[in-house]
């Protein structure tokens, strides 16, 4: 694989099994700096697993993943340093319930980035403003709606000033009327030039922000392309069948 410095994520022939289930069977792709890649596919196709492999929440069985020049499976790589540069937003938000919103956003800044309390707080407030809920700083997560919680989760990831943002079905656990507020933040982030890998079936987001789409099925990438092409004339029969169901 070419070592193009513009390729911030290089995934090469990655395989991962859970017991007998082969979640990934040799997946290769690259993500350029500033690119917004959306992964779609039926459930069980391995798209979430692939996303989680990027920051080693799942450890691939074989293959290689290089993130911003760091070979993720190499024993000399300090995974924690790379992870601080890669934000991830989960389907279930995973906010820390014992901490207030502002503390949620400050915690990793303080202990990973070693920022001073004032600096971390200032940055946290700025991120909260960015996601549109500065007034919720002192609230606890359980006092917020799902959409607000997810926006706090995004703010928490952004506060680390990551180079890459991963989104693992960020709107799947939300009520329909809350999806837009989260997508709006994500679109703004994409327009701002953030490198993003998004597992989602939100066509609104795909149309507004995606640079490239990857379609996965049974642990393999079936097809990829730019959105207009991809939706207008998908090459593969499997892609056509899937798209006819979700569009």
């Amino acid at each position, binding site marked *: 694989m070419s070592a193009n410095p513009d390729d911030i994520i290089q995934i090469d022939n990655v395989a991962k099994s859970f017991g007998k289930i082969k979640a990934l069977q040799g997946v290769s792709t690259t993500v350029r700096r500033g690119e917004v890649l959306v992964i779609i596919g039926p459930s069980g196709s391995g798209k979430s697993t692939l996303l989680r492999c990027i*920051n080693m*929440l799942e450890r691939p069985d074989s293959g290689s993943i290089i993130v911003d020049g760091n070979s993720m499976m190499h024993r000399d790589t300090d995974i*924690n*340093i790379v*992870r*601080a*540069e*890669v*934000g*991830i937003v*989960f389907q*279930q938000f*995973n*906010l*820390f*319930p*014992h901490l207030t919103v502002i503390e949620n956003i400050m*915690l*990793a800044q303080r*202990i*990973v*980035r070693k920022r001073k309390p004032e600096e971390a707080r200032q940055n946290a407030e700025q991120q909260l403003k960015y996601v549109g809920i500065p007034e919720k700083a002192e609230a606890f997560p359980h006092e917020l709606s799902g959409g607000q919680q997810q926006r706090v*989760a995004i703010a*928490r*990831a952004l506060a*680390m000033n990551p180079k890459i943002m991963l989104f693992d079905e960020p709107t799947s656990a939300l009520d329909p009327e809350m999806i837009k507020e989260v997508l709006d933040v994500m679109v703004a982030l994409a327009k701002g030039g953030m490198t993003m890998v998004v597992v989602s079936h939100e066509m609104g987001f795909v149309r507004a922000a995606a640079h490239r789409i990857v379609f996965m099925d049974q642990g393999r990438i079936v097809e990829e392309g730019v959105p207009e092409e991809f939706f207008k004339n998908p090459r593969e029969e499997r892609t056509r069948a899937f798209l006819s169901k979700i569009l």
Partner: protein
Amino acid sequence: MTTATKKIGEGRLLPVTSRLEKLPWWALLIALAAVLIVFSILTSPVYQDAFNFIKEGIVTTIRVTVIAYGLSLIGGLIVGLGRVSKNVVFYNLATFYVEIVRGIPMLVIILYGAFVVVPLSLELINGLGNLMVRLVPLAGFGRALQQIDIQQVDMSGRAIAGLAMGYAAFEAEVFRAGIQSIEKGQMEAARSLGMNYIQAMRYVILPQALRRVLPPLGNDLIAMLKDSSLISVLAVRDITQLGKLYRARSFRSFEAYNTMAFLYLSMTLSLSMLVKFLERKMGHER
């Protein structure tokens, strides 16, 4: 259709439970018994005598319980972290400890602690001292270690060691369950922000887990207070030992044991009320 529709309130009423049935009679009975004993202690010379003799043990019982409990929490947390650790050595050592200690009666553990573990560790410390004396910069400290003697550790100290050893295994399992009850996503979120395992445990998992294990930990404090009576086999002068002595001296079994039971019960009941109160307070916060 004009069939006779039932009016609201026409159906049969639920049987009324009388207020008397709902009264906590058991608590009233306990209170009555307590009043009786307090009254006896105040008025009857025999009870007074028994109480005055046994009350010296209250401090010992509380001191032993509190210190042993504190130690068992520290030990339990360490062993509990071992039980959820991915480190093969740490996990297996912790599990080995828990499985062994939980399978042996507390009385035997206390005897082990007092007559095996404490003397052996002292010998180890003496040995360490011998070694350090030869290393010039540490000689002073080494000499101090050499001079530690088994006579310096009294029986209540050995009893504390034994109790703490035994309860550490139980607390370890409480901590393990608490840690494992925290959703997997919490650890993933913490790690994905760049925290290492220890930081994630310290700042994200443990604060949540500790809140959840507070009620079982409180119950174990009560259990330990009761099990502290076992240290009377080491002739530590706690409530039980003094009660036994008083009975042997006066042959007043009834008065001696009533006083002992009363002392234990008043401590355990007030503790369990405290635990319930804490539990309810925690329940509000969730």
